């Protein structure tokens, strides 16, 4: 975390009351901080509470309890003062006016934030250029491609000149190229403006590419809060692939499965690959012992480099790395 804390969430809870379906604890005691100029990913499976958290930050959903401070302003007690600190691009919404052109949308949203046209003219020009909307400045938003519309929505959030931006699944529904394009824009714009960004996404490539740190939520709770590089290292250091000659079967297979219930082995008559996570040194030597007892020929031992997607899946399916040998 660099510099000062810009966003501070403490014990945030949101309960949706419903007579028909009973109460839903969409967010259940979430706490995390984001430092100024950080780009943080908010990850979690469907229904984890990401959108609810983001809407609470944006003041359009009022939390049941908990504290949110946006650049020092209490967003629960003083939502009007707090929205001066945050702009949001919300999931699945249009976020922009169909009938207005690119430039008109930017001008409108700046004014909605209280910024005078003259004061933002230069930054609007800059955003139009940065997001590659130059040819389309006079085109009504409804005639833009989906990728362009999403870029415009982002630009409309940037034009508000708030220190914090929250982006809920900004690349949803975009093709590979547009998604890639958008990532580049997010990174550049964040770096250029020194903005703090909290971004939710199911696309781990996007997160790995854009975010320095991730907060992973599941069932309304934070399950992991760490730097992406740390996670990769943490998981990478523990994942091994043993390649041995011959099939894994009979007593060897049984012995392995008793000691490492979660190991993943694939064999053909000539060679077997055993993928296993060995979080402590003991596990490694236990495995080697088992192989020695069965007189297996070890052809190679490799450290595997997991990607964020695999790490994410492990974390949310509760195969936490602290879970011991497997």
């Amino acid at each position, binding site marked *: 975390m660099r510099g000062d804390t810009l966003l501070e969430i403490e014990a945030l809870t949101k309960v949706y009351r419903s007579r028909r379906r009973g109460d839903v604890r969409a967010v259940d005691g979430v706490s995390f901080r984001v430092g100024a100029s950080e780009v943080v990913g908010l990850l979690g499976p469907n229904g984890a509470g990401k959108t609810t958290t983001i809407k609470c930050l944006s003041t359009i959903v009022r939390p049941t309890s908990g504290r949110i401070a946006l650049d020092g302003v209490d967003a629960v007690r003083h939502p*009007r003062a707090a929205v001066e600190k945050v702009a949001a691009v919300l999931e699945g919404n249009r976020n922009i006016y169909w009938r207005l052109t690119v430039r008109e949308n930017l001008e409108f949203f700046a004014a909605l934030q209280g910024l005078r046209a003259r004061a933002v003219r230069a930054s609007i020009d800059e955003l139009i250029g940065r997001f590659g909307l130059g040819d389309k400045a006079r085109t009504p938003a409804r005639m833009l491609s989906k990728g362009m519309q999403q870029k415009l929505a982002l630009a409309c959030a940037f034009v508000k000149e708030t220190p914090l931006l929250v982006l809920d699944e900004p690349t949803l529904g975009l093709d590979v190229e547009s998604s890639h394009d958008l990532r580049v824009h997010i990174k550049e714009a964040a770096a250029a403006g020194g903005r703090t960004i909290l971004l939710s996404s199911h696309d781990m490539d996007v997160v790995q590419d854009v975010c320095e740190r991730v907060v992973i939520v599941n069932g309304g709770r934070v399950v992991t809060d760490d730097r992406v590089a740390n996670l990769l290292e943490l998981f990478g250091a523990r994942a091994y692939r043993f390649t041995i000659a011959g099939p894994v079967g009979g007593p060897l297979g049984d012995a392995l499965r008793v000691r490492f219930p979660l190991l993943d082995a694939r064999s053909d008559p000539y060679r077997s690959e055993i993928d296993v996570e060995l979080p402590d040194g003991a596990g490694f030597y236990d495995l080697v012992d088992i192989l020695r007892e069965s007189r297996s020929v070890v052809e190679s031992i490799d450290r595997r480099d997991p990607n964020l997607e695999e790490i994410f899946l492990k974390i949310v399916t509760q195969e936490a790395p602290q879970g011991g040998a497997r």
Partner: protein
Amino acid sequence: MRTLVLLWAMTKREAIELRRYAFDTVMQLVTIYVVFLLIFFGAKAFIGGAARTGGTLPGIVVGFMMWTLAISAYSDVSFTLVQEATAGTLEQIAMAPLGLPRVLVARFLAGLGFNLVIQLALLLLMMATTGQWLHLDLLSILPLMAVTVAGVFGIGLAVGGLALVFKRVQSVMQILQFAFVALVALPLDRFPFFKYLPLAWGNHLIGRVMIDGISIVRIPGPDLALLLAVSVAWAGLGLAFMSRLDRVARSRALLGHY
């Protein structure tokens, strides 16, 4: 300052939409005009020659004008809210630092200017077609119209607020438009309590200016005060109700759904 920036932005957006969708705008005016002709000549045939001396036909012109003005002010908030909710822009305007109620007031004021101009143009057209030339004392009419319509705006806010929370209120919205007909058409001497509802008293006073040729300065003070008080009360109630429902919608996370 911020309020002015917001008001200017809303006015600009309104102007852009009116211009860009000029065909829609014109078609709406044509529809209103045709409805007017049907009502006017229908009434004329129905009442017969007697009306020509009785003053009923000028009353229809004024009442119709006030009704269409009321509907445009009313739908500027209520239908706009539904539209924004469906389009997915409502959450964005709900994030305005000035707050949703004030954004809606700005929207109303921006719409009001355009509505007044459009209404006057329509009025000229109606007078020309029907030969019912009324007193066009703009300095008297415009303030009365603006104040009268503020009361209707309050109703629009209240219904818009209900739409935020309860969603399926479009039928109520439509029915209310016809309830406004009663407010401009029914005689106040038989329904005196209508004075305290939006629209009716203002419509009466504008009738005095346009039909009887009385200037606003000659209307008795208490009569003007009543109009102002009733309009301010309804607008205030509407705003308070809307603010309350805005909070309910935020605590139930309803702004994003429609």
